[in-house]
């Protein structure tokens, strides 16, 4: 099997400049930035599912958008299948169009991500048109049919001429998945693909993604705020807080033996569907601070239930605790 990682992210930064008032710019006050992603590195093996978890504003969606080139990165390197993305260097590189042939994104809201005036056939066939693949009409129909089939919309022909408004939320999300899968990508970036769906339908979509991954060996970056969904099918979990990765490791390890206090709190508030198992929760007070003026030291210290004085001054880096399990907390030491 190919040993080159599917994706490698090295020192990724994404800052969004804050609009400055005229007076401030006349006074030559320094520009401030929203530090959406602030030095994040990780890699993704072929066929692996990595879940990126965190609250709103932690930078998880920005990472997804940066990976697929929807946002230009501020600093850092993204390496796809051993090739630098969009580089103008001597190194082997891959352009955005090439990248998007092989890496596809699924968005959160199936009610807004489908063109309401296009038929399902047009929607699913569009990526083939954009990338100039499969020019033959018959072959194209066959490709669309098999993508819809794989996405669980059967019989596929019945959906060809229908419009998004005729479909339920679950069916729409299947169309979104079909149009991502029609190119047979190697990497799928799914941004909260089930958070808008009902419970019974949610399970179907998660099962579908799991099947696609088993059958096709596709790699998935799965972005979500819901740890319970992640528990179900991720191989590894990365927990983010305010633009930084605070913990990363094998899914079971992170869920059953969390090290970072933020991860512990997140797990403790994930509702468990059994009233006999009501537990002690660690409910963090307040809300995520503003990513323009980050707290000093460890950025989690103002809300951390176990913070000590040194947390206000020292910014912790990820340290390896066990094989593949890393956490960024001053109070966590190697076992």
């Amino acid at each position, binding site marked *: 099997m190919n040993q080159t990682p599917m994706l490698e992210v090295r020192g990724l930064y994404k800052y969004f400049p804050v609009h400055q008032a005229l007076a401030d710019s006349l006074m030559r006050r320094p520009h401030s930035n929203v530090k959406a992603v602030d030095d994040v590195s990780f890699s993704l093996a072929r066929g692996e599912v990595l879940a990126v978890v965190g*609250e709103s504003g932690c930078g998880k969606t920005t990472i997804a958008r940066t990976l697929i080139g929807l946002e230009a990165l501020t600093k850092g390197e993204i390496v796809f299948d051993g090739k630098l993305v969009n580089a103008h260097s001597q190194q082997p590189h891959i352009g955005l169009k090439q990248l998007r042939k092989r890496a596809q994104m699924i968005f959160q809201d199936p009610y807004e991500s489908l063109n309401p005036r296009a038929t399902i056939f047009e929607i699913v066939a569009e990526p083939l048109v954009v990338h100039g693949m499969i020019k033959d009409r018959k072959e194209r129909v066959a490709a669309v049919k098999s993508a819809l089939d794989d996405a669980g919309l059967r019989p596929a022909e019945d959906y060809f001429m229908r419009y998004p408004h005729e479909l339920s939320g679950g069916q729409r999300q299947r169309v979104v998945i079909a149009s991502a899968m029609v190119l047979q990508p190697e990497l799928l970036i799914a941004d909260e693909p089930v958070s808008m769906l009902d419970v019974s339908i949610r*399970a*179907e979509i998660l099962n579908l993604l799991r099947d696609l991954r088993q059958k096709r060996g596709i790699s998935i970056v799965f972005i979500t705020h819901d740890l319970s969904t992640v528990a179900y099918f991720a191989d590894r979990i990365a927990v983010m807080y305010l633009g930084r990765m605070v913990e990363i490791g094998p899914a079971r390890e992170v869920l059953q033996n969390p090290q970072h206090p933020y991860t512990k709190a997140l797990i403790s508030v*994930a509702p*468990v*569907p059994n009233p*006999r198992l*009501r537990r002690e929760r660690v*409910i*963090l007070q307040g809300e995520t601070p503003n990513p323009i003026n980050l707290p000093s030291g460890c950025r989690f210290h103002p809300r951390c239930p176990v913070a000590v004085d040194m947390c206000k001054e020292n910014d912790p880096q990820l340290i390896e605790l066990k094989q593949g399990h890393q956490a960024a907390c001053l109070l966590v030491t190697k076992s």
Partner: protein
Amino acid sequence: MNNGKPLLSVRGLTTEFTTPEGKIARALEDVSFDVMPGQTIGLVGESGSGKTTTLMSLMRLLPAGGRITAGKVMFNDTNLLALSEREMRDYRWKSMAIVFQGAMNALNPVMKVGDQIHEAIMLHNLMDEDAAEKRVKDLLEMVGIARTRRDQYPHQYSGGMRQRAMIAMALACAPDLLFADEPTTALDVMIQAQVLQLLREIQKSLGLAIVLVTHDLGVVAEVCDSVVVMYGGKVAEYGTADHIYNEAQHPYTQKLLEAFPDVSKPGDTLASIPGTPPRLTNLPPGCRFEPRCHLKIEKCSQVNPPLLEVSPKHYVSCILREGAEADL
């Protein structure tokens, strides 16, 4: 505590809508449950199962085209459905209040948050201006918002704070019963935990009964004493939280629980329920769940099963329920 008289008793509530095409949609059919004083009851179900319609029927706030065609809603000793609109107004806010779905958009964006709460108090002639002003600030403090933020506008609040402000507003006239419609749905897990904790605290300190509407079985398991599972406008199963989560008898409840991912059991496979919920304008003749049910027998497509008690305080509407062999 459940031996006393219910605060709210709903019996056989049936609500219908006339669609713009002139069709009749039966949104609720024969819905029955009790809310005890100080109790939290969860109304769970998927979109279109009738959760919100139940709340709107109980508050008599159905939109145009909707009407209650049968049933009784007893609040203490008064049948709310027999009251005139004028009399009903005395019950809303003062006896029963509602925290609407989508707190993000339920506040008036061009009015100070404090003024909105103030207005709710003054409309009900409960106290004079000064006392009301003090009450506004007390309410904000109770839900964890600094008194100084009284004069801010909704856009200056975060999502979690807006939800808290909505709760403060619902509590303005000291109701006995609070309806909360998906109060945590749009919120992050941590903020959700904060809001649920707040609801528990105010319930304890005010002795409030809460009807919590949600599609999230995890949230219900965390906070509810009893649970009503709704499907296609009917009550599929109704019992204590323990009945529902550990002794579920309706196939829908069982499947729903299996479909819910559990953070404490990583790697577990998830069951899914094939098919989609029924259209309310075109309901199946027998059991509402029959087309999607994995246990159905022939009779299920002919008989619309009533809600029957299978053990004390545990009700199921399924012809395959325990001890039902005799009826078959």
